[in-house]
């Protein structure tokens, strides 16, 4: 029975003219699509060059990974199961329907001319084809329904398009919403009209037996027949619908490059080309200077082609927006809006490409721009975030038309709000790399001299003294005074481990307590280590991320010079920020080292039995993953292993591991004034920990965290109930490290006691430096 009658005629009922008309329309649609896509490519060709291939193996691995991610929709499913499943249904539904159409084209338009006998659109193939397309078409419609339901009912914060930096009154985002709905609606229309067409066909043909294998059409047709649809009426309706369906489909094809649908093309590319080092290793300044010698991303012509693709890739899913600590703390930055602003600006300059619904309203930006950040705004003595008008070098006047990005389109206050925590990059399902772009624009701000006052003070101190504390670089090793066993000077003696101490660990009074404990725990574990003393300077990670590339180079060159004088096997550092730049960025400048975080070394020391728990720290603790440890260096296990090894009962906060929440200090934020924030990220984080209930210690493994959270615990009124402790303080307690002075009476128990003991050390130290003649 599976003979050639088990099939359907593709252009059934269509006159020759009609067929010709259809082919003409198809050609036009395809042409528009090709022109649109071509314009995209022309736009990318405007971008600066950027090598995204690197070594071939890595490139291929990236492509493979990207393809897998696209196929499985894994990046979409991650963090949002509902959307992920729905998206997969829509995507695969669409792809299969597209392939189905392609098969028809092959059978109808190619086979008859090349091999008439090979006509295959009948019999078993036809039945299989019918089932597969029906099922996946239904899946697509269900996916669309689920997505529409989500938009209507869930009120997801990430789908809230209101801007954080511009008042709602002057922000018009209706175009964005409309664009989303048109996209979704159009797809739905495509599916529904297809099924209707199928149903009419089945009714018109009086339900041929094999059409039961088009179950959706069959059921629909049966329903129609039940309500009295005759075969003749069905045939008339079918012809009308046929043209409608064709029009919808062809229009969609033509519309793709000009709409949200372009993500179908851009995102696979973006995922395949994304760099595993995005944000971790920032690009060096281009060796060829720009015509006028400016540095950084100053205007759209400074964007690389990949950054232009990034902008097109954004689907406004808002996951970065929801994950961003700047958004959460009320700072004027949303990574989503930043990317969209860039896209709109670029498209405005190549106007034909702009999706109509996302065209910028001048009202919106006309009001936004002049506030900008003139020299005055960013540098007012009031230390404000630059909303007051400025008399800078005509910055505001150039936006929106003129194309000044940093300080113009994207205000300085927005750019300074980024903590470079990388949460946006981690969250983005389509591989957009926000952080390097933000830093690129910060470089331009620095180049224009638009530097936040606190940051400027830090830069100045760093340039002169190599630290941000305004202390003499010579006193960098002073924290070692008073240690029972002196620390080896690695410039004079070979060591196994070179301990790169870092700024906060060397100079901040609170962190110094932890630093001294690190030294003593290493000594207790017989680690052969040394430090560079005053030879060390700030490693430059955050200076680089604040956009001061020249200063970074200065510091890095100095450090590499010092490191080359020392003989060691590996570097260990207490500072995740330092870890990142030493590991990923110093190689750019000729310094390649094996770099460990001290939590890793501690884990290994426990592992090998060099450290042993003598007194279990049997308390409920939680652990905060530092951004630069968990996301940049991807170290999440080691500190937990240490906590488990010392017997702590670790309770995780909701945001942990790679999903950690920023303390707000990264990327140079630690030097800037954050008084203007609604609620500091660090304080939100403390509340998150307190909400777990019964947490005794808030453990962290980053010097900046220690200062930030100590302050935040006080500020939120949890200073007495929650002990903010460095990992090392718990370890020191667990291995029963002797306090240096006898002041502690019975000796300290627990981190609090140890901290007190450390205070004792401080006091003792003060006494020995001759000021304590009380």
């Amino acid at each position, binding site marked *: 029975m599976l003979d050639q009658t088990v099939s359907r005629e593709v252009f059934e009922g269509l006159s020759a003219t009609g067929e010709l008309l259809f082919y003409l329309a198809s050609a036009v649609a395809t042409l528009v699509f090709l022109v649109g896509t071509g314009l995209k490519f022309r736009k990318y060709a405007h971008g600066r060059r950027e090598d995204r291939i690197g070594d071939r193996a890595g490139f291929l691995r990236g492509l493979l990974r990207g393809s897998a991610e696209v196929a499985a929709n894994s990046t979409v499913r991650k963090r949002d199961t509902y959307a992920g499943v729905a998206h997969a249904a829509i995507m695969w539904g669409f792809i299969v329907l597209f392939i189905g159409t392609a098969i028809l084209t092959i059978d109808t338009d190619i086979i008859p001319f090349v091999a008439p006998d090979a006509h295959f659109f009948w019999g078993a193939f036809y039945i299989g084809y019918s089932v597969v397309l029906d099922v996946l078409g239904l899946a697509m419609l269900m996916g669309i329904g689920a997505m529409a339901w989500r938009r209507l009912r869930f009120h997801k914060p990430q789908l809230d398009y209101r801007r954080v930096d511009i008042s709602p009154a002057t922000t018009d985002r209706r175009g964005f919403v409309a664009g989303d709905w048109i996209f979704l609606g159009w797809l739905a229309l495509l599916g529904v009209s297809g099924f209707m067409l199928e149903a009419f066909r089945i009714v018109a043909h009086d339900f041929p037996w094999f059409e039961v294998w088009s179950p959706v059409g069959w059921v629909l047709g049966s329903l129609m027949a039940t309500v009295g649809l005759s075969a003749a009426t069905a045939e008339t309706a079918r012809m009308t619908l046929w043209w409608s369906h064709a029009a919808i489909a062809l229009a969609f094809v033509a519309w793709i490059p000009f709409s949200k649908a372009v993500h179908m093309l851009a995102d696979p590319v973006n995922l395949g080309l994304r760099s595993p080092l995005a944000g971790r290793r920032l690009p060096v300044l281009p060796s060829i200077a720009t015509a006028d010698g400016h540095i950084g991303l100053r205007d759209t012509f400074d964007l690389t082609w990949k950054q232009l693709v990034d902008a097109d890739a954004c689907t406004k899913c808002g996951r970065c927006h929801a994950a961003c600590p700047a958004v959460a703390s009320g700072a004027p930055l949303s990574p989503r809006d930043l990317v969209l602003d860039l896209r709109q600006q670029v498209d405005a300059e190549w106007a034909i490409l702009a999706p109509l619904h996302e065209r910028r309203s001048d009202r919106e930006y006309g009001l936004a721009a002049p506030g900008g950040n003139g020299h005055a705004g960013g540098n007012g*003595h009031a*230390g404000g975030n630059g909303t007051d008008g400025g008399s800078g070098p005509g910055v505001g006047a150039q936006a929106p038309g003129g194309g000044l990005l940093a300080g113009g389109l994207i205000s300085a206050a927005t750019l300074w709000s980024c903590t470079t925590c990388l949460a946006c990059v981690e969250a983005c399902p389509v591989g957009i790399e926000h952080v390097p772009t933000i830093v690129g624009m910060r470089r331009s701000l620095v180049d224009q001299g638009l530097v936040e006052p606190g940051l400027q003070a830090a830069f100045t101190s760093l340039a002169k003294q190599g630290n941000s504390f305004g202390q003499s670089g010579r006193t960098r090793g002073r924290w070692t005074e008073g240690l029972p066993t002196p620390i080896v000077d690695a410039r004079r003696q070979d060591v196994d481990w070179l301990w790169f101490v870092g700024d906060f660990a060397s100079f901040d009074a609170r962190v110094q307590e932890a630093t001294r404990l690190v030294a003593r725990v290493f000594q207790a574990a017989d680690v052969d280590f040394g430090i560079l003393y005053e030879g060390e300077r700030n490693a430059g990670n955050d200076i680089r991320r604040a956009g001061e590339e020249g200063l970074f180079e200065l510091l890095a060159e100095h450090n590499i010079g010092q490191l080359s004088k020392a003989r060691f096997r590996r570097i260990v550092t207490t500072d995740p920020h330092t870890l990142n730049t030493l590991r990923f960025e110093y190689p750019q400048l000729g310094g390649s080292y094996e770099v460990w975080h001290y939590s890793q070394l501690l884990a290994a020391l426990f592992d090998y039995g060099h450290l042993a728990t003598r007194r279990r720290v049997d308390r409920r603790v939680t652990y905060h993953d530092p951004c630069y440890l968990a996301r940049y260096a991807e170290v999440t296990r080691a500190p937990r292993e240490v906590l488990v090894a010392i017997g702590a009962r670790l309770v995780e906060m909701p945001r942990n591991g790679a999903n950690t929440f920023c303390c707000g200090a990264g990327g140079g934020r630690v030097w800037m004034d954050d*008084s203007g924030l609604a609620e500091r990220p660090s304080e939100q984080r403390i509340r998150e920990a307190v909400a777990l209930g019964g947490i005794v210690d808030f453990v962290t493994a980053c010097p900046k965290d220690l200062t930030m959270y100590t302050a935040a615990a*006080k*500020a939120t009124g949890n200073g007495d109930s929650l002990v903010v402790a460095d990992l090392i303080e718990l370890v020191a307690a667990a291995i029963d490290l002797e306090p240096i002075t006898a002041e502690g009476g019975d000796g300290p128990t627990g981190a609090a006691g140890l901290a007190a003991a450390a205070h004792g050390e401080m006091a003792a130290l003060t006494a020995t430096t001759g*000021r*304590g003649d009380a």
Partner: protein
Amino acid sequence: MSDDILVLVEHRAGTVLDPTFELLGRARALAAETGGQAIAVVLGSGVDPLVATLGAADRVIAVDDPAFAEFSPSSYQAALVPIVRDRSPRLVLVANTGPGMDVASGLSAATGLALAAYATGVALEGGAPVVTCQLYAGKIDARVRFADGRGIATVVAGSFPVESGMAAGSPPVERLGPPATDGRIRFKALLAPEAGDVDITRETVLVSVGRGVGEQENLELVEELATALGGAVSVSRPLADAGWLPRSRQVGKSGLKVKPRLYLALGISGAPEHLEGMRGADLIIAVNTDPRAPIFSVAHYGAVADLLDVAQALTRRLAG
């Protein structure tokens, strides 16, 4: 050539300012040693009421002219140069204030007399002045002599007791004229600071904070402490510059001079300009993380600690 000690009188709005009295007191003591006279030089318009407060001087040289109704650096300079040239005193004492700085260096350049700036001590050794100067924001003291035994010193306010120079009386007045004036700098107006909510010069307890406070928000903690102590908050120059508190709360050379019963200095390192404004307090307690901060040299009690920790602990302690 003489062994006289000249003191430039600084006055504003009809009143001789405190630094002048400090200098007069010191000049009188020095003149007693040299055998010369302590001579006050006053430039003004209608100087008699001023002269009446200069009883500590052995003699007054006055230039009385409407051109000197208000301070003008160029006019002062034009009038002073011939006086100093003619009298050739052993020592000219000028307060290290804005007008003092204006006048003293120019005088030195014009007359060839050496100048010792930022003096905190002036003494005589073998009849020649020996001056102790502050350098490097108070981190270094230098003892200097003038190469030819005579010169000018600009003296930091607060170096000598004001009382020693405050004496009523009517010293002989030598009136000079016609005054040499230079109109290249013209006085336009005196702008008073906006009235503040708190008059820190009247408070008996001041909790004063400097850069060490870190962020503006932390001022709240300091306010709490001030309230607990029944006093007010004052600040050092950088915080007033930053606009965190009005100028009327600023203590120091360019701010206000205060003499509370308690001056609790939190996170203030103690630049000379600041010390000028508060060293007269009855009790000074300083908290700073830097054990080498100069503030500890004027404080009665000191603690090396984080000011926020201490402020919170003290607030708690005072609360109960």
